[in-house]
Every structure is written in C-alpha cells, then in structure tokens.
C-alpha cells in the first residue's frame, strides 16, 4: 500500500485536462445545437417546435447517468461501441443542448415583441431579424445563466468516469483504489473542481452586476 503523494496530484492535474476538453466540447457543440433548438422553439413552425420539444424534454427528464449508460453500453449492444471519450462527449452534448436550448429560449422571448415588429416593419427577413436584432439582445441577458450552466456542466462531467473515461473523477477513484486514502484523494479532486468553477461563478456574478447597471440605465 502506497500513500497519496505529489505524483498523484500531478496525475490528477493531467486527468483534469480531459475534464476540461470534455466540458469544452460538450459546451461548444451542445451550445451550437442548443442555439439551433432555441431558434426553432421560438420560430413559427409547429412541427419543428414539437420535434425540438421531444428532444429537450427527453434529456431534461432523464438522469445524465442513465443517458451515459444508454449511449455507452446500450449502443454497444448493437455493435456501436464508442470510445469512452466519444460516448461521454455525445452524452454531455445532448444534455447541454437540452438545457441551453431552454435557457436561451427564455432569453430570446424576453426581448420585447416591439423589437421584432420594428425590424419587421423595416422589411428585414425573419432570419435577419433574429441574427441582427434579437440574438444580440438575448445574448446579453443570456450570459449569467449560461455561465451558471457551464459550472454545472464541469461538475457533471465527473459522471463520464462511469463509462471508463479517465478524467479527473476517474483518476481520483483509481488513486484511491491504490492508496485507500479517500479523504485526501477526493478532497484534492474537490479542490481542483472548485478552482475550475469558482472563477466562472465570480465572472457570472460580475456580468450580472454589469447587466443590472446597464438596464437601470
């Protein structure tokens, strides 16, 4: 039995890279998909809205852990054994897309109806109205809740450890199996998660204050 040492901290930091990659991929791809879903949800098409809603509600109302199992083990049964990173990324992308879509839909709807009308009366096309008038205004409102969700995504990426992906949480588990010093090991992991998330939380609060000031005008 060896004891928890500096080498292990180094190993945790290396594994943290993968936590970051996973979160970034999930956030960027899930964000793009979520933005598209949010635009579809606020567009006129009933059919599109219905389909988007099925997607969103499916991922919102099932545990992320179950989604990851389905993607990794479930698809594996049909011969689609995805590499752990890909499986984890796909799961987190779907999860992020559903939540970001609903956050951003709310932001889009909070832009006053008169803004649509004014742009419409200037003969802009519906896509021009969205891109040049509505989304830039929705973006400002969206920053604080989006950063808030990003923090949640970093923490939830720890679930990727269950599909065999070696990110921070799985590395910590492995070290614990060798050292049996769970308090030290997981406290160290917790500190790393905290150092990733805390600056983002602060950033989000700063944005929120700025927004407050600008809307008070």
């Amino acid at each position, binding site marked *: 039995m060896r004891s928890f040492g500096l080498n292990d901290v180094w190993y945790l930091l290396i594994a943290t890279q993968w936590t970051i990659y996973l979160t970034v991929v999930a956030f960027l791809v899930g964000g793009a998909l979520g933005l598209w879903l949010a635009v579809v949800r606020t567009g006129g098409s009933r059919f599109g809205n219905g389909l988007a809603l099925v997607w969103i509600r499916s991922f919102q109302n099932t545990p992320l852990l179950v989604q990851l199992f389905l993607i990794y083990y479930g698809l594996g049964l049909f011969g689609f054994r995805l590499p752990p990173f890909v499986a984890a990324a796909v799961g987190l992308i779907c999860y992020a897309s559903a939540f970001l879509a609903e956050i951003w839909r709310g932001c889009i709807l909070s832009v006053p109806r008169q803004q649509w009308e004014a742009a419409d009366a*200037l003969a802009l096309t519906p896509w021009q109205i969205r891109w*040049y008038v509505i989304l830039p205004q929705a973006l400002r409102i969206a920053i604080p809740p989006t950063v808030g969700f990003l923090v949640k995504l970093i923490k939830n990426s720890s679930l990727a450890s269950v599909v065999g992906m070696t990110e921070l949480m799985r590395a910590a588990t492995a070290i614990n199996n060798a050292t049996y010093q769970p308090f030290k090991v997981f406290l160290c992991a917790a500190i790393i998660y905290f150092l990733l998330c805390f600056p983002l939380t602060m950033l989000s609060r700063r944005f929120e204050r700025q927004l407050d000031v600008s809307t008070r005008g």
Partner: protein
Amino acid sequence: MSALAVSGVSKRFGSLQVLRDINLSLEKGQMLALIGRSGSGKSTLLRCMNGLERIDAGHITIGGHALSYAPAALRRLRQDVGIVFQAYNLFPHLTVGRNIMLAPRLVLRWPSARAEARAREVLATVGLSEKFDAYPNQLSGGQQQRVAIARSLAMAPQVMLFDEVTSALDPELTGEVLITMENLARSGMTMVLVTHEMSFARSIAHIVAFMHDGRIHEIAPAKDLFARPRTEELRRFLSSTL
C-alpha cells in the same frame, strides 16, 4: 395617382369588430391625420396599412404596392412604407448610426459607405448629426423619436406612417418631434398619422378623418372638419380634447 387607397376594409379581433368598411384615399405629398377616441380603431387602421395587422376584407394600395401577405411582397411594400411607433422601438444594442444603417445595408444591400452617408444625411434632416455614435439610452425621448423617424426615412419611403408618435413624450419634448414631422410634410412626404395633437392636425394635415366605433365617421379637409363638425360625436370629441 393616389399614394394610398383603402377600400372596403374590415377587421375583427375575435368577436370585436374593430374596422367596418373603411374607404379613403390620399394624394401623393398629402398628410392624413386620423383622430378619435382610444379604441375607435385608428391605430389598427394605420397598422393594417403596412401589414402589421391583417385585414379580413377589402383592399389597400399604398406607395404603389397592393397589400398582400406573401412574405416577399410584404417586404417590398415595407421598403416603400415607413412606420414610426409610439415607443420609438430603436434597437438598444446598436448606435444611432447603426440603427439607421441596418435596413439600407440588409434590405437594400447598400455598401456600408453608402449606407453611412445616407444615415448622416437623414440624421442631419432631423437635426441630430452629432448623435451618430450615441446609443439610444443616451438620448432623450424626443431625440430617440427623431432617430426613429430618421431610421424610417433612410429607406427613402413613398409613404410614412406615424402611430401616436408623441404620446409617450413629455410636453416639452413633443414640440421638437412635431417640428421634424412638419418639415417632412413640407418636403413633400406623403404621411398618415394617428394623433392626439389636435392643433397639429388642424394646422398641418391636409385631410382629417374622425374615427368612431370602427368607422370613418367624418372625413374632410382639416380646416372644414375642425371649423364645422357635422355630427354630434365629432362635436363632443372635439370639445373634450380642445
């Protein structure tokens, strides 16, 4: 050739008949003022003219376009028919200059140098040249409304619609907006406005229509309508506002 022709227009909101068989026409370069109590249908009629509200029956021809709700046709109509709203509705994330340049660049596909030149020209028309780089929330209500007029004007419309554009303004700011509109009228712009400014309607408008209960109750040259109201409803309305 009239700049605006409305014939047999009716509209209902659910069970409420808001417009009943409206007929009117306006020559190029003239100003029509729609007056009446709130709920009489005047704003709805104005918003029907550029398709912001749909009509249930009748025809509208404006600025050389027959009103149709096919998206492309409606956009072509709106290029030639500007509207200014009570609440200005400037885009708060864009500077004054960019507010004005947006439609010429996206709709008319002008290069930005040409759009900027046009924006500066119309800003000068409304007397706000120095505000090109300001944001809307840095302006007073009256200045914001003049920018909104400039924004519409930048598209060089055939007809401009004004929906109670001074109603949200403090009395001391109303004047500057009315002067801007008066200058526009003198320059030959065809204008339709919904207004509560009776003295402005009387002195500047060519034709005034009094709306009551979804109908055009009386319509006449401005001087006649105010001097000799023919119906009891108009007499009562005028005595309550003057």
